[in-house]
């Protein structure tokens, strides 16, 4: 093998090695920027819209849901968003089931907050309306400045203060 061929092979090998590295990184990038891809966004969006209509189109066996399976209210709020506190920006899609908020790891939304109780509050749907219930928390659950007593209807856009966090339903 001549000197020139060898040098070309040697450098070509390094180039191919970097081709591998860069293609691997490209695969990684696709993973990282996943939500920005139109195709995957569309794919993940679609079910959200159909989920409201889903019980109608495909009747499903209901095995005794929480307080009877309340159908997802049409045009009702679609998600629970944390708008203040350490978890700001966290979103939980609403389903027909209740959302338990607190510090206990078994909660749906786990707050890492010394001011909240283990099982602090519950947000649940009934008859097309969402309600919030304080579960006997130490520091209370507030709507505006007012601590809530018992079960209170919760409209979208109204902030519920739990410890240092504020959550609200959004459409």
């Amino acid at each position: 093998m001549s000197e020139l061929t060898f040098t070309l092979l040697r450098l070509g090998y390094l180039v191919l090695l970097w081709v591998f590295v860069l293609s691997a990184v490209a695969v990684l990038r696709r993973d990282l920027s996943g939500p920005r891809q139109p195709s995957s966004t569309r794919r993940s969006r679609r079910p959200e819209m159909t989920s409201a209509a889903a019980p109608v189109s495909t009747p499903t066996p209901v095995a005794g849901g929480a307080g009877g399976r309340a159908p997802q209210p049409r045009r009702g709020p679609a998600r629970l968003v944390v708008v203040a506190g350490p978890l700001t920006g966290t979103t939980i899609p609403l389903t027909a089931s209740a959302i338990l908020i607190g510090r206990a790891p078994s909660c749906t939304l786990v707050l890492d907050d010394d001011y909240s109780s283990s099982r602090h509050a519950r947000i649940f749907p009934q008859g097309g309306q969402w309600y919030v219930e304080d579960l006997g928390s130490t520091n209370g659950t507030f709507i505006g400045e007012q601590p809530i007593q018992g079960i209170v209807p919760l409209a979208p856009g109204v902030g519920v203060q739990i410890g240092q966090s504020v959550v609200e339903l959004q459409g």
Partner: protein
Amino acid sequence: MSGVAPAEPGMLQTDERVPARVAEAFLLVVALVLSVGAIWMVGESMVGGLPPGFWTYTLGLTGLALALHLLLRFRAPYADQVILPAVVLLNGLGLAMVLRIDLEDARFATPANAGRHFMWILLAMLCAGVLLWFLRDHRSWRKYTYTAMIAGIVLVMLPLIPGLGRPINGAKVWIFIGPFSLQPAEFAKIAFAVFFAGYLVTNRDTLALAGRKVLGLQLPRARDLGPILVVWAISLGVLVGQTDLGTSLLFFGLFVGMLYLATERGGWVAIGLVMFASGAVLAWSIFGHVQRRVDIWLNPFDPELITGASFQIVQGLFGLAHGGMFGAGWGEGMPYLVPYAYSDFIYSALGEELGLTGLLGILLVYLVIVERGLRNAIAVRDGFGKLLAGGLAFVMALQLFVVIGGITRIIPLTGLTLPFMAQGGSSLLANWVVVALLLRISDNARRPSALPMRGQLAGPTPHEVGQGPSGTGALPVAAGAARDAVAVPGRSANPPGESSFGPPAGPADGAAADGAAGGAETTVIVDGPREGGTR
């Protein structure tokens, strides 16, 4: 909870197609071309033709890599697509380098043995395949938490048993059974990762929540320091008894790293660093062999050391310097001048023949594997899987740091080997097992599970997550997953208001499957942004 049968693909009611793993196939082809090319170039420059065993090596490697690819298609179709090609490439490069030093044998009689190394590669890949085939759900390992602890401790202690262990170059990290020699620390690494994951997922709340803040660091309570003290004592025992800084750093680092993963408390890292530093200084001031290692590290060019104790590391540095920017080319350097160039010092051998450009490429391949492990840790939904994947990825990164740091004189040299490349059966086997575990976890993490789980309605779409009859909440595992799933993105750099979760395109396979008592009405498992994956 651990015996839950994972998803049968046929039951998926989802519009997600099973990925064809095209990216993996493409990367695998490039990796195999690189491996075969390396072996061919080694032959060209060493013997002026195909090297002995060329067809065995290339066909064997290609065959097994493709077999694993096909196995993944059937058995873990959603698994990560970058890990396998990256690992195959590292194996191929390692094999080429071992072969290259083996061919030098005629002149220098180094005990490199490419045939044996190749056999171990095949065996390790087979083991990974078997593990992937039979282990359907990584969560089933959680029940072996304390078994793993005992196994880990026994494995670490084995080299200290007289007659079984024998010091090689001062470090007692080997055991000899008949003709076989093993480095049990490599397997202990996995055992400890399983144990720490199982232990921390149960106990993390105590470790995370109690304590007060000092200077912005949340410090744990004194009585919660027990576990870290035990691991510290074990790793110091390793340092003193086996004279091996690497292994001891590996175990302690693994524990502190996983503690941090589990609790998100920087205080633990600070405590761990202080404890290790003080322990290491203490060991240095008491024990002569530790002092000698440090001397070699600080003054390798000392005329008294350079011909003896520090000969290896200095030759390795010369080799790296000889390689320069683009390397001497396969088979054109003189890596055989470095003792153990085929195992402990394979990094400097590669540096000599591929240059800095090649070394950085190889480092990036490692980095990609580690990144995939950590990414899977974020994506997977059960707390045990998160900690296991995170811990395994972290320990691989730490091992790389210890090995390469030792060769490039950032830290004292240790007896650890470069994963996947260095000749050595235990290292290959253990690291392929790690790869199989990571692939399995990533499959579980990415699988769009529409499955009706226990405590979950059979939803018409895969997107009605974990809605269950009241009273079925989640076990601590599931709860941990929910906690992580919610907590992690909140702490990440997502701008407020941006929904970092998206709809849970792949709902609670992991967590809800574990469903059982707990009292939460439901557990909506929210995922981090992970749509698309690498398909």
